[in-house]
């Protein structure tokens, strides 16, 4: 029996080797995606283009504007004489934020004046709601610290609380440390599920499934022989991505590599099983690819917490996400990489993944037996 499976595995590898472009994609795609995601997938707010209107032209107004200029979050791209000049910049997206300092600003601060003159206006383009919200918070923070600095210079107590915020696991709040481990989970899913979804349907399309059916190969052997080669490809991808993540992107690997690899294997069972299952319910390769991508991959990517936090989703959808294996694997990879936690904390996720994988492989085996 072992030699029969070995022959099948060998045949799958031969087929992979004969399609050099596909083979290239399996190696090139992960690296390219990792680079793109590692560098592009950042919601850090830096260099927000901002236009300023200094209606006061005083020492204090300049000092406030300089604070914006000095901040890494903002980039002053233009200066306008009147508030009406701002529209043009926001409309065309050349600036996201506008800072308007009213006339009489310095006088009102030094001698006391109406609140309307100590109020600086911040106009924001709300089209990109997320970035604008964060940028507004930064702008508000700069203005508050400006007040506090003024008060301190006059020997007043600026406030009673000194808030010290400490961030754990990722103290500098670097997006890539969060995204890059996630890419590992994403890539494995995309590559292995897509590949294995072709496994049986291709034989059916080419008519070679009949030939396989008349060999003494059992269903279990067929499934296993199809799973193993792609599993190996997936495992090579894991090692590749982990190496690049640690050496190139310098993502800290705080937990144990063994936990990570064990998690990856359990997860591979799910992704390969899923592909096989799709393979058994599709009649053409196109159907298999579209089904995998649209009904499984894309929903999983969006709803797993890869980019969008699950906590923000409506409750019924949060329940739905418990059916997504990617969700559990993301907790495992990010937990191992950033928090350095081990099996003692992550065992529920391992259990969920294992259960999911076994179920889907069993389903695939059942379906393929019916067709035989």
């Amino acid at each position, binding site marked *: 029996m072992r030699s029969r499976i070995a022959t099948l595995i060998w045949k799958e590898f031969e087929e992979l080797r004969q*399609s050099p*472009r596909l083979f290239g*994609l399996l190696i090139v*795609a992960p690296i390219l*995606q990792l680079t*793109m*995601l590692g*560098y*592009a*997938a*950042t*919601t*850090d*707010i830096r*260099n*927000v283009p901002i236009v300023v209107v200094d209606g006061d032209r005083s020492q204090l107004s300049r000092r406030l504007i300089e604070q914006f200029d000095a901040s890494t979050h903002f980039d002053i791209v233009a200066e306008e004489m009147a508030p009406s000049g701002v529209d043009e910049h926001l409309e065309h*997206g050349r600036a996201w934020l506008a800072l308007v300092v009213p006339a009489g600003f310095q006088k009102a*601060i030094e001698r006391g004046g109406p609140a309307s003159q100590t109020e600086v206006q*911040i*106009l*924001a383009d*709300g*089209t990109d*709601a997320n970035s*604008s919200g964060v940028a507004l*918070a930064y702008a*508000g*923070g700069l203005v*508050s610290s400006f*007040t506090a600095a003024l008060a301190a210079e006059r020997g*007043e107590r600026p*406030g*009673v*609380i*000194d808030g*010290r*915020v*400490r*961030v*754990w696991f990722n103290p500098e*709040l*670097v*997006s890539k440390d*969060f995204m890059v481990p996630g890419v590992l989970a994403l890539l494995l899913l*995309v590559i292995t599920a897509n590949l294995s979804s072709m496994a049986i349907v*291709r034989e059916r399309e080419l008519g070679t499934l009949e030939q396989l059916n008349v060999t003494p190969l059992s269903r279990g052997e067929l499934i296993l022989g199809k799973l193993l080669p792609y599993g190996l490809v997936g495992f090579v991808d894991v090692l590749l991505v982990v190496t690049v993540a640690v050496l190139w992107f310098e993502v800290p690997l705080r937990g144990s590599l063994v936990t990570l690899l064990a998690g990856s294997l359990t997860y591979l069972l799910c992704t390969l099983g899923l592909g096989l299952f799709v393979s058994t319910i599709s009649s*053409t390769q*196109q*159907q298999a*690819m*579209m089904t995998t991508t*649209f009904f499984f991959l894309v929903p999983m990517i969006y*709803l797993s917490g890869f*980019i*969008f*936090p699950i906590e*923000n989703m409506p409750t019924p*959808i949060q329940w739905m996400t418990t059916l997504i294996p990617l969700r559990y694997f993301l907790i495992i990879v990010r937990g191992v990489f950033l*928090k350095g936690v081990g099996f003692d*904390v992550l065992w529920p996720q391992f259990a969920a993944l294992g259960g999911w994988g076994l179920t889907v492989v069993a389903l695939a085996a059942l379906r393929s037996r019916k067709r035989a």
Partner: protein
Amino acid sequence: MSGLWAVALKELRQIRRDRRSLLILLFIPCFFLFLYGYALNFDIRHVPLAVEDRDLTEESRALVAAFVRSTYFDQVASIDRPEDMAALLDTGRARAVLVIPSDFSQRIRQGGVAEVQVVLDGENANSATTVLGYANAVLADASLRLGGQIRTPIVSAAPRIWYNPELRSTLFLVPGLIAYLATVMAVVSTALSIVREKESGTIEQIRMAPISTLTFVVGKTLPYLVLSQVSAFLVILAAMALFGLPMRGDWFTLGLVVALFLVGALGTGLLVSTIAPSQQVAFQASMLIAFLPTLMLSGFIFPIASMPLALQYVTTIVPAKYFLIGLRGVVLKGLGAGDLLGPMAAMGAFAVVVLALSAARLARR
């Protein structure tokens, strides 16, 4: 001309026969829009907060109340022993911890400054940045309230937000989803339709038929152009009905923007199909050159201004970037065709380049 219709009709018949693919092309985008538009947002509220109050006085309780009242934080646990904090953060049961020292109220009453600690789970750097902003705002506000007034006039910031005053991330994400779905439809369907002919060998028959390369290409893509245009408008209408996406500009400009983008996307699909020998490769390649850039480099989710400079240059050849500028410009800002000449020219140029490249590759065979 008759050859063109013959090719287009043949393609339509083939599309109709494959019910599942047709369904995916037409209605799945709407379904996904519904699911994702509803599910996805960056509006962070109700961050689970654990409180370690070592002071237990009126002042310390006022500070805790300020956190809860902000609606950004929900108190999920009280910590009695300092060592419990790690477990709460490790398991993710709490995403933020507020630690109030035992001399908190005493220091304030004596006219000093009391130190308060907030610990955040930074694992998700993106949402943690937002939470950090909330925490600082709550602390700054409480600091002024607990301390009584200071005499220096306070410089305050009065924010006004244009186009999307409530900063609903839905209004920002939905146009991105439309771009994403349109790319998927257009690129994949064209890429696969020609490779399929290659794989089944029918492309040889077509080659012998008395039609030019151009007729073949246009006839092949025309049905998909119509289908994806219909699909794109279904999605846009659904977004307006379901998520209150406004329509501040005119429909003509919108139609123009969508059509320009789709021609480019179909051209990309065509180009992929001239390179790929099998459906499997075609699919993987479209994922790589169309989906990922649309998702990552278009400004759909991640702001382009924050990317490294080299990558910002790369985004200039991503058509979805211009499509998003156009789409958001028309529906949210009410811009007309005159304001969007730049993005439209870019999309047009992209379409011309990919179409010319694929025509050249097809003709060479």
